[in-house]
């Protein structure tokens, strides 16, 4: 980008948000090159707007100047979703973190995008309500980011993901308009369901500045069980057995041996270190029902190979069990300096087979792979452990990731269940969608964003469908589709 153009843009941006909240100092913008994924890329300018109107003006200024815009909030994306891969302007929501309204009559809350997911549930708790989607990073990730990726979490098994809990959005479009789609009332609006379309669009259509979400009454009790299995296959079969009984727990989570070790080192959750796999199950309900369902599930677990079933006796024990699970990714830091998380999905019934194949990949390549995931909905999170300081390891790990995602797609699943395509899986999206599918999606994207300036370089493959003006920038690890799409023959 021409420095002159950027300088004048920076001047204009500062008029909108103030001197302090728009900067291009090369040292300072370096701190916006990363998120929780291994991807990095430098932005040119960082803007920290304070209001929706400021966001709209910032978006318009950038769009008019033809400069890419990437929205970033907690930057806890595991898929490089907030990495400004085509440079340009990064908008962060650190200042827009207010809960605007809690309307218990309508079972709605209205929030700014920078509100931390857990902060909303904490604010609702004294009123007897909560916000259901609970990504494992809920202590840091924001509702705005959740909307971008259509985030899930352990408890979405029974209650659905972010899109099922969003009824309205206010969004800043590249045209400079600030549009409200949907709102407080039930999501059966006239006209196309634009709010539904925007959730999960990873910031490629517009930038969300206000969110209307459903809230729901807290369950009277939650019964949490830990079932211990000799191996992941037995545990996976137990998951199918539970689902077949007609009980759908609020959450079914699985952790394999390696994950258990890391979690125990980090948080002493009380998982048995000698187990091959652990299932964490939770049912919601009125006390007498939760008790009954807990017993029924415990029975099914035992009948299906559990060597031990432990029921959390109180809230502290329940929190301990969950703390281990929720901190699982970050706890991997205890096993390895670096790791690479994947987010594949397979139909529940394909879990045992898929896990066995992943095991085989680990054995063949020599990289340790642990698994900690949402077993109830087949959402796998294999983590490949490696050392980024050892030459060749990063590339090898990317190839392993690619192979695992292909495996999931071939099993009738998906390449991402909740992290989003982002930057990291933009080539892998071809495993689940044809060019025709992607062409329609791109056409829809261009209705909102004709010049593909909103979070460019994400979601769509880099090689053809969505070329934009900023494709040939140095400084980020561009992965060619040809190099990683070849599958098995790369492994000699």
């Amino acid at each position, binding site marked *: 980008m021409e420095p002159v153009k950027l300088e004048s843009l920076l001047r204009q941006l500062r008029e909108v948000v103030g001197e302090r909240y728009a900067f291009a100092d090369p040292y*300072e913008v370096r701190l916006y090159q990363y998120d929780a994924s291994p991807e990095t890329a430098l932005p040119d300018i960082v803007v920290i707007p304070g209001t929706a109107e400021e966001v709209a003006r910032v978006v318009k200024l950038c769009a008019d100047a033809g400069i890419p815009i990437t929205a970033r909030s907690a930057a*806890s994306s595991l898929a490089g979703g907030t990495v400004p891969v085509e440079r340009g302007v990064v908008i962060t929501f650190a*200042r827009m973190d207010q809960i605007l309204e809690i309307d218990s009559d309508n079972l709605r809350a209205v929030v700014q995008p920078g509100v931390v997911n*857990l902060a909303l549930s904490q604010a609702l708790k004294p009123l007897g309500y909560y916000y259901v989607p609970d990504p494992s*990073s809920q202590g840091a*990730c924001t509702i705005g980011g959740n909307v971008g990726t259509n985030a899930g979490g352990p408890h979405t098994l029974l209650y659905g993901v972010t899109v099922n809990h969003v009824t309205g959005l206010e969004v800043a479009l590249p045209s400079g308009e600030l549009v409200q789609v949907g709102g407080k009332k039930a999501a059966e609006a006239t006209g196309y369901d634009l709010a539904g379309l925007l959730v999960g669009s990873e910031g490629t259509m517009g930038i969300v500045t206000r969110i209307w979400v459903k809230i729901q009454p807290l369950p009277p009790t939650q019964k949490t069980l830990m079932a211990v299995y000799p191996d992941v296959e037995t545990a996976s079969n137990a998951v199918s057995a539970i689902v077949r009984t007609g009980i759908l727990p609020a959450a079914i989570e699985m952790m394999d041996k390696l994950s258990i070790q890391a979690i125990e080192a980090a948080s002493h959750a009380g998982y048995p270190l000698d187990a091959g796999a652990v299932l964490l199950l939770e049912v919601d309900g009125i006390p007498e029902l939760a008790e009954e369902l807990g017993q029924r599930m415990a029975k099914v677990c035992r009948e299906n190979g559990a060597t031990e079933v432990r029921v959390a006796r109180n809230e502290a024990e329940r929190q301990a069990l969950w703390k281990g699970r929720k901190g699982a990714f970050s706890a991997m830091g205890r096993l390895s300096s670096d790791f690479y998380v994947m987010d594949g999905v397979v139909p529940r019934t394909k879990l045992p087979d898929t896990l066995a194949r992943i095991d085989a990949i680990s054995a063949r390549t020599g990289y340790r792979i642990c698994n900690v995931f949402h077993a109830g909905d087949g959402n796998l999170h294999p983590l490949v452990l490696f050392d980024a300081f050892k030459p060749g390891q990063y590339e090898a790990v990317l190839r392993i990731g690619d192979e695992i995602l292909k495996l999931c797609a071939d099993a009738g699943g998906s390449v991402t269940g909740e992290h989003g395509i982002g930057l990291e899986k933009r080539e892998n999206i071809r495993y689940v969608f044809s060019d025709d599918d992607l062409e329609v999606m791109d056409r829809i994207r261009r209705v909102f964003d004709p010049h593909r300036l909103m979070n460019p370089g994400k979601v769509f493959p880099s090689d053809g469908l969505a070329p934009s003006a900023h494709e040939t920038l140095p*400084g980020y690890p561009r992965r060619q589709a040809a190099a990683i799409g070849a599958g098995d023959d790369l492994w000699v």
Partner: protein
Amino acid sequence: MLQPEALDFKRQLERDGVPAPAAGIDMDLVRDCIHCGLCLPKCPTFRALHHEGDSPRGRMWQIKEASLGLVGFDDPRFQAHIYQCFNCRACETACPSGVQFGAVMEMARALTPPQNRRDRTIRALLLNGLLPHPRRLRIAGWLYRLTRSARLPALLRRTQAWKILPLGKFAAFPPVGDTAPRRPALAPLTNGLDARRGRVGLLTGCIQDEMFRGTNRRTALALAANGYDVVVPAEPVCCGALPSHAGESKTAARLAARTMNAFTALGIDAVIVNAAGCGSNMKEYELQLRDDPQRREAGAAFSRTVKDASEFLIDGGMRAPARRIRLRVAYQDPCHLVHGQKIHRQPRQALKLIPGIELVEMTESDWCCGSAGVYNLTHPEIAEQALSWKVQHIVDSGAQVIASANPGCILQISMGLQRAGHDLPVVHVMDLLGWAYGDQTQRPPVVLKAMA
């Protein structure tokens, strides 16, 4: 300006091979951070400044880049972000990867001088000029108490002079504490009452002893009431916490060695500390003495004997005091206790054991009040912001008295509350315990009333 490219290990490895980190940096500790971002909502400076560079993750990233030579340790922007940190270590509690943020921050600070003149002056005067010198410290303490006994605080408030004087706000709004220039010395040995359970040393500290000797006496009383003989070193020692947390590693190491010598000579079962910052520091002597192969091991062994007063009392099975104090009390977690030493439960349990006390929880009790060692002197604006959140949460909690466990926090919060017009005393957990065990000195009016 030419900008170095993004931090991309793959490219770097191809070009430069395996990187050699800067001297004085333990790269394994730095690489523990996987930049997941879970620390961000727990960071007071991120909340105040909204800038990634002032978040724990951003600071770890900068230290990583500096260690790999991508940015300079002497870059003024690096220094600004590194010294803008409270070092409250709330991020350590939030971190699932077990990053030792405090340790990394101290390594980084040791490699870069502070950025502003104010910071340098305070270091020269306070951290290096005053604390390591017991005589100078005693004179300063005497002067401080003299101003209080001469009613200078009231004068400062009336004339508004506190607004322009250095340290004026602390002088004008002083905490519950010692007010007489001359005070009785702490007995070298306080005998345990009833069934004797052991012999412990008590760190009287530097600032703690000059401003809160009454608290030290009540700590000794509480220990004695639980059957412990309490001894104090003949010569007062400073453990080196303030210099250490500010990155003055040489001063810190010297003071650590001196403290270890003073206590090792006493023949005791445990070293009891009632100042959270000191306790946290003394539990990490191994880290501070890492460049001293002879003392390093001794440091680790010494650290294992160091206990916070409430930790020691509760874990040993505290005897409930007899006197009733009918008060609604909120407990403020000192950062170096809750995050530095992971002690959350024991001070609360100790308070609950006092008959009549109703413990209420304030919102964000584990957030830094802005005192943060010398931070409230070096970065008053940001510290004031943190203090204003704290004052609001305390008022909202409906507590009549605030209990904490660190002199810095007590000074800061006390000043903040009084200045905002709230007559809520801030005292040490050991003060309340001491009064409940029978001490009758320095009780603020609300406590007197509650014990009547």
